[in-house]
């Protein structure tokens, strides 16, 4: 059996779940177990939990627009050096450049729009692919 390698997406593990907030918790449990096994420190675990929660919520609510007949596909690989998580939805995609900065004075008291900002702040690398349907996130161990 090939060991999952964060540098080779062909080796990634895959979990696909129905696009509901309840089902979205399942990949988080599996990935976090793997991360804890690889000895990630508490700050890195905090960051990964937060970014993954945001990515899954975005996929269900915004990507798949609450359509429970759609799915969220999660691929990941963990090593002692880093974790890569790729979250993909079945929606039409989006342009992350269209999401306004939530920290400007006129937007500070708006209750939403902070998920992408937190993912960017807490992960070492965040890339949107396939017209925004897929987000690639990398977190190094020890940061």
């Amino acid at each position, binding site marked *: 059996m090939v060991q999952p390698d964060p540098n080779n997406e062909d080796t990634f593990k895959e979990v696909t779940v129905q696009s509901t*907030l*309840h089902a*979205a*918790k399942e990949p988080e449990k599996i990935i976090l177990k793997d991360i804890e096994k690889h000895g990630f420190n*508490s*700050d890195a675990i*905090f960051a990964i*939990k*937060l970014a993954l*929660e*945001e990515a899954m*919520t975005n996929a269900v*609510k915004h990507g798949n627009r609450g359509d429970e007949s759609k799915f969220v596909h999660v691929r990941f690989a963990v090593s002692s050096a880093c974790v890569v998580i790729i979250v993909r939805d079945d929606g039409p995609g989006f342009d992350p450049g269209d999401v306004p900065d*939530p*920290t400007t004075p006129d937007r*500070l*008291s*708006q*209750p*939403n*729009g*902070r*998920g992408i*900002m*937190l993912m960017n*702040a807490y992960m070492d690398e965040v890339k949107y692919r396939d017209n925004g349907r897929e987000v690639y996130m990398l977190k190094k161990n020890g940061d």
Partner: protein
Amino acid sequence: MADETHIKVADSNGVRVIEFCDRKILDELSISELGSELKSAVDDQPGARTLLNFRNVEHLSSAALGMLITLDKQIKDQKGILKLSNINPQIYEVFKITRLNKLFDIHDSAEKALASF
């Protein structure tokens, strides 16, 4: 939801002190329940001074921040005051990154927050 399972509400010299029972305020399902419980607690005493104590909380998400902003607005609309306390350093960083440390009145401890009302 009738039963309060996500918060504990107490009174401290006329200030409504609310503590979270959950260590994680992450997923939207429990945040929606939590938001309803907080709204009910605030509606019970409109205009009251309110302290939200985060001492049990180890994690929160952007949905939780949104819920707090909505609560802050509800309390301000009722001419009340909301303060936050006992936010651990990892979570305080989330407030700093999103600049919500500028929107909320945050204190190191419940004692300091209560003294500042």
